[in-house]
């Protein structure tokens, strides 16, 4: 197998093509950092009250639609009336020293790795600024330099059922050799994440703030109450975690050196 260095080396007749603009690259990596910190500190914050409710209010004596808990022997995840044994991962797990802990998310998934609500909130509420303003700057820049219009918008012929079917079939066959343009499913998932899920995380986050609830009461009404906003915040965070897993898998399958290299240097070998 050729080493990575050999592959990156530019042979004669293989010029480098611009793949990602500087603004895209800066945002990609600052956002990767912010999302990584926000997801994991968010799981630590969730550990302080590992129950989710719908409506304005909800506490231990109210009905939770989702709960991660533990009893004497096992950890469990409960959604509605269904309960799964999650011992070892959720609810009850062993820490780095092999000591059994009864918290919702395990030490390897949280920032900090031990229970510390105050510190997790500091991480979360500071990196939230990087996340929110990074996204805002990227959006403005992406409209301004026509990244959205040129690369992310659907073209008319792309939206035919046949094209949709072909793109889905290509993905299922793990064929990603799509050249310099984003394909349909890729565009759809980027648009969904950038323009729907990430902004919703910001707004559901703000909707949990008692100060914002007084200042902008309409915001909490959109989500149907503070505990609903908290539930939606958690669900969307889970969707983002899912997006990241698929994103990383596809990068690995489609050629990680070329993909990651292009997101760092902006350039990619022409094929």
């Amino acid at each position: 197998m050729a080493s990575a260095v050999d592959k990156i080396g530019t042979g004669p007749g293989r010029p480098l093509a611009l793949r990602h603009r500087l603004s895209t690259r800066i945002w990609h990596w600052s956002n990767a950092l912010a999302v990584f910190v926000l997801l994991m500190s968010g799981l630590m914050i969730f550990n302080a009250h590992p129950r989710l409710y719908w409506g304005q209010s909800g506490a231990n004596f109210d009905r939770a639609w989702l709960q991660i808990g533990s009893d004497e022997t096992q950890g469990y995840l409960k959604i509605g009336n269904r309960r799964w044994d999650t011992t070892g991962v959720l609810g009850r797990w062993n820490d780095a020293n092999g000591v059994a802990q009864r918290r919702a998310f395990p030490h390897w998934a949280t920032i900090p790795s031990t229970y510390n609500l105050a510190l997790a909130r500091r991480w979360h509420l500071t990196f939230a600024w990087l996340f929110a303003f990074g996204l805002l700057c990227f959006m403005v820049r992406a409209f301004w330099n026509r990244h959205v219009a040129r690369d992310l918008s659907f073209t008319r012929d792309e939206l035919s059922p046949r094209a949709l079917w072909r793109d889905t079939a290509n993905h299922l066959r793990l064929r990603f050799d799509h050249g310099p343009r984003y394909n349909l499913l890729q565009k759809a998932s980027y648009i969904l994440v950038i323009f729907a899920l990430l902004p919703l995380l910001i707004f559901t986050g703000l909707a949990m703030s008692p100060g914002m609830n007084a200042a902008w009461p309409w915001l909490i009404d959109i989500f149907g109450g503070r505990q609903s906003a908290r539930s939606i915040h958690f669900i969307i965070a889970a969707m983002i975690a899912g997006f990241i897993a698929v994103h990383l898998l596809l990068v690995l399958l489609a050629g990680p050196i070329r993909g990651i290299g292009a997101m760092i240097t902006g350039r990619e070998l022409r094929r």
Partner: protein
Amino acid sequence: MSRLLTRRGLIGGGLAIGAGGLLSGCDRLGESPAFRKILSCGEAMNRHAQRLLTDRNALAREFSASDISPFFRGNGSQNPGTGGYPEHAAAGFANWRVRVSGLVARPLTLSMAQIRSMPKRSQITRHDCVEGWSAIGKWTGVPLSLLLDQAGLSDRARFVVFRCADQIGGAPYYESIDLIDALHPQTIMAWALNDALLPIRNGAPLRLRVERQLGYKHAKYVQAIEAVATLDGIGLGKGGYWEDRVDYEWYAGI
């Protein structure tokens, strides 16, 4: 290059080492005083943004009676066992006194009977705990601004400190707020919850309601209200029991 060192193996191993390193790195960063300063930026930015961009007099939402939670749980101290509190509770708080002092022209010492006979405000509001749960209750009490007016608040006062009867780990609970929240119309010293005298778990006989901040700011078992110019020298200087000990945000509007 050895065949054992495949590209995928390298990437997978690199990711695992990277993730593990990042995690222990985050723990170490979180303990470093310099990095904690950076992590504290969020609180200052959130406070400034909310104070600057939103209406300082905005009212917290008030709910209707049908929204009231069937059970309003307690949290933190639920029954102080020290400082004469059990005796006060046994006597129905007949001998409980609340002192209003500090940077005021006329320090006050008030009995609960006097406080309950003062003009009152009732509000059905949602209580949001820093842990994540919320409960709705109807609070009745005297507006804090009225108490401060009666005592003659000095122009030099910047903060109001609440000293409590409960101790956690041997240290007395206390909290503080600035004058924007202290003089807010919904900031009351509550003596009733859901039309009954305050239960002990919720802070009997008197607790603070500061509706635009998280639950730990709402000091319970209040014995003294003190107007001050600075929070230096009070407790460990960060303005509250949890702020001093575990570094909770002093501004808990988010």
